[in-house]
């Protein structure tokens, strides 16, 4: 008798919950139902920073909440206080581990909490976030408030690759991450080394123009220094290896899909050569490189054990421990290579000649939550940090992971004086924009990157390259199928258009 009663209660509860779930999910909250102040009657004046402050002052007393990755939160915390003093708008920073900067926006949005106004994410998540309705485009706000000259001050390659998608402005760039090569000039310019290299390979020892040259140089340096300095290193451990794959693959002209049929092309010739390259680098790389992540890579680099590496720009700054960028990171060994590093663009082709390639991997962008109850104040904060005046400050903040992305930063005398080779650093970063390759900025991007990551660990774990590539292709196809072939096709088309836009901008 007890059991029957319990059964009844459970059934009713089930029914109620089911109805609740259906109705709850059925009623969508429209985008943009936020409190918007009436458009200001008077004209908006001043540079971007001043405009941001003027806009924010209208909302003095309110709070803007943002999510950010913990280790990158320094500038947001520090300048948030400055912003509050200047405008009366409080900035609350939620610091999260990297993975949660992707899952928390999702949870907060699906529950329609409206608790967070600004999400700091990476460009490859934009299509997924846009499709899920987590973020909203900012075109109207941009048109209204951002002055043209400040907009044009942003380096075009990065602007297009990180901020635009399907013709709209979905994000504001605050970080100019791009992959370039960092190499030990002291070894490259050593007369003995140059002589021996030329004798062995027939061309001058200089930053490689192709991956074949990269391997030859790498092997040579490892031999030349008797294993004290390894020719080259990169990430292979699970989690970030796919950036390295993408850099080489896309740089050599590889395409993830056939644009018409959406058949994955990763297991084609370029994919095979890319995996082979990733494997070959282990030959002259440090022992245990299959385990290497960013921590090992940068530690090894500043410790003088690696002659060539490519990864994010902070590695160049940290290696210099420049006095203008004080407070050296607490987790890196003291740098032994200050003053010895020079910079170059990464090779594109595997062999022979061809344009260089600079992958925009990772990279921090600030987006506007679609549930934000404080839209304009949130945009004011984003705009303020993005402004040319603040961008320079944030990128010079100690241990800042925010890399230069504005022409004014590249040309800044203060930045150029930060260390002897800083000017070359900035020029290379600027030049890299011309050859920028957008990240996996397509619907399902996270899943495709994960498949590539898996591919790399499989091969590192012993699986043969072609079968691993074929498995990856099969998985990618399954994802395309699940998300809807036409939708992914359209998204991929949008990504290819971004690529063309970058080429045409220069």
């Amino acid at each position, binding site marked *: 008798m007890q059991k029957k009663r319990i059964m009844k209660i459970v059934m009713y*509860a089930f029914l109620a919950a089911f109805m609740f779930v259906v109705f709850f999910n059925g009623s969508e909250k429209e985008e943009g139902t936020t409190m918007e102040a009436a458009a200001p009657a008077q004209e908006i004046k001043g540079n971007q920073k001043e405009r941001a402050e003027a806009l924010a002052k209208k909302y003095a007393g309110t709070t803007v909440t943002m999510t950010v990755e913990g280790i990158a939160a320094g500038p947001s915390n520090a300048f948030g206080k400055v912003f509050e003093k200047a405008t009366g708008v409080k900035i609350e920073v939620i610091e999260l581990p990297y993975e949660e900067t*992707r*899952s928390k926006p999702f949870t907060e949005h*699906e529950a329609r909490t409206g608790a967070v106004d600004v999400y700091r994410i990476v460009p490859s998540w934009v299509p997924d976030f846009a499709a899920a309705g*987590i973020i909203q485009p900012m075109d109207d706000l941009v048109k209204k408030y951002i002055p043209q000259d400040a907009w044009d001050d942003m380096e075009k390659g990065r602007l297009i690759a990180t901020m635009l998608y399907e013709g709209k402005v979905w994000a504001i760039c605050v970080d100019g991450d791009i992959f370039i090569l960092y190499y030990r000039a002291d070894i490259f310019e050593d007369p003995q080394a140059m002589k021996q290299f030329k004798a062995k390979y027939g061309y001058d020892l200089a930053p490689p123009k192709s991956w074949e040259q990269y391997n030859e140089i790498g092997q040579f340096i490892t031999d030349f220094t008797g294993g004290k300095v390894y020719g080259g290193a990169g990430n292979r451990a699970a989690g970030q290896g796919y950036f390295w794959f993408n850099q080489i693959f896309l740089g050599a002209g590889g395409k993830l899909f056939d644009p018409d049929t959406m058949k994955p092309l990763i297991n084609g010739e370029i994919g095979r050569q890319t995996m082979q390259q990733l494997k070959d680098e282990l030959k002259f790389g440090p022992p245990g490189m299959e385990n290497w992540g960013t921590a090992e890579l940068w530690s090894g680099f500043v410790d003088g054990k690696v002659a060539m590496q490519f990864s994010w720009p902070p590695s160049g700054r940290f290696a210099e421990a420049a006095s203008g960028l004080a407070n050296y990171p607490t987790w890196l060994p003291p740098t032994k290579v200050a003053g010895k590093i020079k910079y170059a663009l990464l090779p594109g082709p595997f062999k022979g000649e061809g344009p260089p390639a600079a992958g925009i991997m990772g990279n921090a962008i600030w987006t506007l939550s679609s549930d934000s109850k404080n839209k304009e104040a949130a945009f004011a904060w984003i705009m303020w940090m993005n402004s040319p005046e603040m961008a320079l400050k944030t990128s010079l903040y100690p241990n800042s992971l925010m890399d230069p992305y504005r022409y004014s930063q590249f040309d800044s005398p203060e930045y150029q004086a930060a260390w002897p080779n800083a000017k070359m650093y900035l020029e290379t970063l600027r030049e890299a924009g011309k050859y920028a390759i957008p990240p996996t900025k397509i619907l399902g991007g996270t899943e495709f990157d994960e498949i590539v990551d898996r591919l790399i660990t499989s091969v590192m*774990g*012993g699986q043969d390259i072609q079968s691993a590539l074929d498995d990856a292709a099969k998985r990618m196809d399954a994802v395309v199928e699940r998300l809807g072939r036409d939708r992914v096709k359209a998204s991929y088309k949008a990504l290819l258009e971004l690529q063309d836009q970058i080429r045409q901008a220069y």
Partner: protein
Amino acid sequence: MSRPNNVISIAPELKGVGGIKTWARQHQGMLMVLPCLIVMLGVGIFPLIFSVGISLLRWEPKIPGRPFVGLANFRDILISAEYWTAMRTTAIIVVLGVTIEFFFGLGLALLLTEKIKGKRIFMAILMLPVMMVPVVVGYTWRILWHSAYGPINQIIGWFVGHRVTISWLTHTKTAFFALIVTEFWQWTPFMFLVLLAGLSSVNPELGEAAEIDGASKWQSFWRITIPVIRPVILVAVLIRTLEALKIFDIIFIMTGGGPGISTQSIAFYLYRTGARHFRMSHTAAGSLIFLIIVATIISFAVKQFQDKKGG
């Protein structure tokens, strides 16, 4: 009348007397359990029903719409090779891990019930591994197992005479070994402490009486001590198994499920599909299938164990 040990009939002398106090007395068992039930079911029943509900939809924010799809999600899970690979991986780690942890824990507990100098320090130290936050455990052991920078390879190198660079975490078989050792390190203290507490409540005079009657120490242990702590053993193994089935952190940090997907646990798989890919319905269906499998196995095992207990 055969009545199971340690069960008391509730206040038989009050039968037939009225009033709320006596009603409370008669139902005191239920009343004592009620607060817990309210907390657990109150907070726990909605998520369960919610999961069942969305497992019947296709709820994936990257795809518009939330259509009703019946059992399609369950079908996807049942034919998913990745899901069952993860299930197998989880089963291997759990069975091997829990078994080894149990025997070692029991052995340690027995060791420490005797008079040993420095017992205090041993116990306090043995409690520490479980205290470490999983993230720290993961990253620490990741460095320990590191092929170039890890002390484990260094120590092995001392024994073998030359430098050793076994890449533990990037090859499947060694990764399994590393994961099980790490789990063992972290959780044997749990077994140890639970069993030690159980052994501490056992009356040594029972064992001594048997020994006077001629039984060996081994026999007294098996025939007398073990049956007394049997409920504690069951609980220790059960709880440890349930926790081990959810293994996530060390896999996430040490191998990322790799190489490929060979060390991916069920919890890691569900985390990926849920928190990374936002596939809510798929994750719900996967969780429910997991729940059904675990509940079936556990209830079967528990019944077996409890049947053996005499009345």
